[in-house]
Structure formats: C-alpha cells, structure tokens
C-alpha cells in the first residue's frame, strides 16, 4: 500500500546492515539455555536414550564431576547403538568426542555461521576453563531473534520518509503502515502537560474503560501500566500537549500516545534501563528512574517509537489477548 516500497538490491544491503547492527550485541550467553541436563560417561547409552525421551531433547552433553565437557550423545549416536546392539554399553564407548563448541562471548552472526557450517542440531557452550555453561539449539536462536524483533525501531528509510513528511508520521500506524483513523478510536484522552498532578489520570481512565469491555485483568494491567509510562513521559519530558488513543478488539488492544514537543534524539539510548534526563525537580516526585520505556517494552507485545529532536514522539503499542504475562 505504501509507495516507494520496492526493494532494490541496494535497499536489501542497507536493510541487512541495519539488522546486523540490531543483533550485533546478542551473544551466546544471552541465548543459551543455562539449565542443561547432563550425564556422566559411566552411564549407559540406554540411560541416555531414556533421558532424551523424558526430557524431549535431541542430545545430552557428557561431563565429568566438575562440569568439564567430555562429549555429547546425540540421537544419531543412539540410533547407531541400537542398530549395533550395544545400547547397554557405557556412554564412554560411543559418545561423540570431537566437539564443536561455542564460547559464551560469540556473537549471533558467528553462531548462525557455525550452525550452517556444521549442521548439528545443538552446540554446547563452554567457558575458557572447559566448563559446560549452557547449550544452544536452533530453536533458541529463533527465540532470541523474535524477542529482539518485538521492538522495532523504525530507523530505516521508512523512518526518514515518515519524519520528512511529518503529516504522514502523525497519520499513519507505525506498526501496520496503514492510516490511523483517530476519530474512530474507542478511547481518546487529551494529555495536559502543564499539570504534573494529573500525570497518569488518562491511563487510570483507560483502565476503567477497559474494565467495561473485558474481564482479562492481566491484559488490562499490562495496557494501563505501559500507557501510564507513555503518558507521564509526555507530561514530564515533552513540553507539549499530547493524546492517548486506544482501540480495543477482542484479539488485540492498540494504544498510541503522541506529543508534538521536544522529541527524543536517540531512541536507542532512551530505551536503556536507567537512562533518564529527568530534572531534579521531577526526580524528587519519584520520576526519573529511567524505567518508563523499558516497562513499556516489557508489558507490550509490540512496540514502535518514532521520534527526532524537536519533532515530538509517536509511540504505538499492541497487546495481544494471549500475549506475555
């Protein structure tokens, strides 16, 4: 629907670069499963098979008493043992010893490259002392990527496009790209930034309104917490009036909070826990922990922030009926 949206090769390269940037700081340590089920090599292949069946895993790392990684037993090893009729042998005789492992510091790009190169289903993560500290399967990698994608900063061309035509920015959904019919919103609240006392009142009203529509207390709580943080930010940071719009649907509740004020120069920095530019005056009132935007991310299922210095902030959040708890 949007114009100028065809992907040229150049665009794709740009996009890939941006994605790489977005994922650059993810390491094996962030992705790995830390509670690894292990066996010692004096156990039998049969026991390994049973453990894999019960825990629904496709490989068991073999460690000594000090968590030193010695090998791995995979489904393939089990099949070979069954075929060769030595399933009752100790693991020591049949485990794979020649292991490809990850270090906790490896970045996502390297991890994906290793997965492609070696084609194993899972890799043990081993620290510099040879101690097993975790395990990573492809599923875990996809999980980490999806988690990161929940938070999309529109830093690509679309964002520039949106910023240049400020009309569009305030008229389009940041998440779906469609025009938003603000007049069709189920809930509208005008944020008065001149009165710190009333900061949060709009979100409390939204909470009461949602209560008339659903019994899902978790959803109501998530929506009103995230909305509160956005509302308060307009009051204490923007220096401008603002609006809360909300649309309720059985499957998804959408909230959009916008202001026309000071804006955020560096959205990525503002998203960091603990980052705050709050004045001493508002800090005395209990604001300024730098937890507002992180709370919004935590309680919403999808969140997009578009802002630039001097151009206000538009923030959109989606909350699914069966979303995060």
């Amino acid at each position, binding site marked *: 629907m949007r114009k100028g949206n065809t992907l040229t090769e150049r665009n794709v390269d740009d996009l890939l670069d941006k994605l790489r940037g977005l994922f650059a700081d993810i390491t094996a340590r962030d992705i790995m499963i830390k509670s690894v089920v292990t066996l010692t090599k004096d156990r039998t292949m049969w026991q390994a098979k049973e453990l894999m069946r019960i825990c629904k895993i496709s490989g068991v790392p073999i460690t000594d008493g000090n968590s030193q990684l010695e090998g791995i037993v995979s489904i393939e090893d089990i099949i070979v043992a069954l075929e060769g009729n030595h399933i009752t042998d100790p693991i020591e005789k049949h485990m794979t010893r020649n292991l490809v492992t990850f270090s906790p510091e490896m970045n996502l790009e390297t991890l994906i490259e290793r997965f492609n190169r070696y084609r194993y289903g899972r890799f043990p993560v081993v620290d510099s002392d040879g101690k097993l500290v975790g395990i990573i399967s492809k599923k875990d990698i996809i999980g980490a990527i999806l988690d990161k994608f929940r938070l999309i900063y529109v830093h690509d061309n679309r964002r520039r496009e949106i910023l240049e035509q400020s009309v569009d920015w305030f008229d389009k959904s940041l998440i779906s790209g469609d025009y938003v019919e603000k007049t069709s919103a189920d809930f509208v609240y005008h944020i008065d930034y001149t009165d710190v006392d009333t900061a949060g009142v709009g979100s409390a009203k939204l909470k009461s309104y949602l209560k008339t529509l659903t019994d899902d207390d978790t959803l109501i709580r998530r929506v009103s917490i995230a909305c509160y943080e956005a509302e308060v930010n307009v009051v204490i940071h923007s220096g401008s009036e603002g609006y809360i719009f909300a649309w309720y649907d059985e499957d998804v509740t959408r909230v959009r909070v916008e202001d026309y004020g000071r804006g955020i120069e560096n959205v990525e920095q503002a998203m960091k826990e603990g980052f705050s530019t709050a004045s001493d005056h508002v800090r005395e009132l*209990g604001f*300024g922990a730098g937890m507002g935007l992180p*709370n919004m991310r935590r309680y919403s299922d999808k969140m997009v922030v578009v802002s630039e210095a001097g151009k206000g902030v538009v923030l959109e959040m989606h909350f699914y009926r069966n979303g995060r708890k």
Partner: protein
Amino acid sequence: MKLNDLVEMCGIRVITSLPLDTDISNAYIGDLLSDVMGNAPANSIWLTVQSHMNILAVASIVGARAIVLCNGLHFEESTVRKAEETGIVLLESDFTTFDIAVKLVKCGLGG
C-alpha cells in the same frame, strides 16, 4: 488479610476516611514510581516516602489498595482529597519503611 487487621496490629495511622475491609495479599516497597509501576503486585500495600499526588495514579493502575507513608512524613492535603475520590487508602507511620515491613510480616503478610 484484611487491611483493617493489618492497620490495627501494626499501629499505623489511617488518614483517609475510606472503608478498610479490603483484602491485602502482598506488599511492595519503592520510591521510584516506574519501579513500583513495573514490579508492584496487585492487591498490595505499598510502603514509600513519596507523598505527592502522582502516587495515586500509580497505585490505582498497579492495583495497590493502600499506601503507607513512612518515616513520619505527611501527605499533602490535596493528595488526601484525591485519594478519597480514587478509593486508595492512605496511611502514615513514624516508623521507617523497614520497620513497617517487619511489622507486616509479623502480622502474617507475605512470607
């Protein structure tokens, strides 16, 4: 636990003229509003040193039923009036936040 019982057993002053028959199942301690917002459980009693009106929006959104202002501090008049409208019970105590927390636990809350 009934708020009524907690207030009585812990010797906390009641500031608002609101009913005290609410059920309290948890407590949270915090002075940074967005920390409380992110972490306080519902149906809780909130221990703080913040007395400004903004605590009321926080309490009603996270579902804190009562706020205890500790360390001998006092709520502003406007906060009390607003609390009565919002239905959030305001309480005061001369004890420190920690001491109140200990008293609450001794009364059987949490743990």
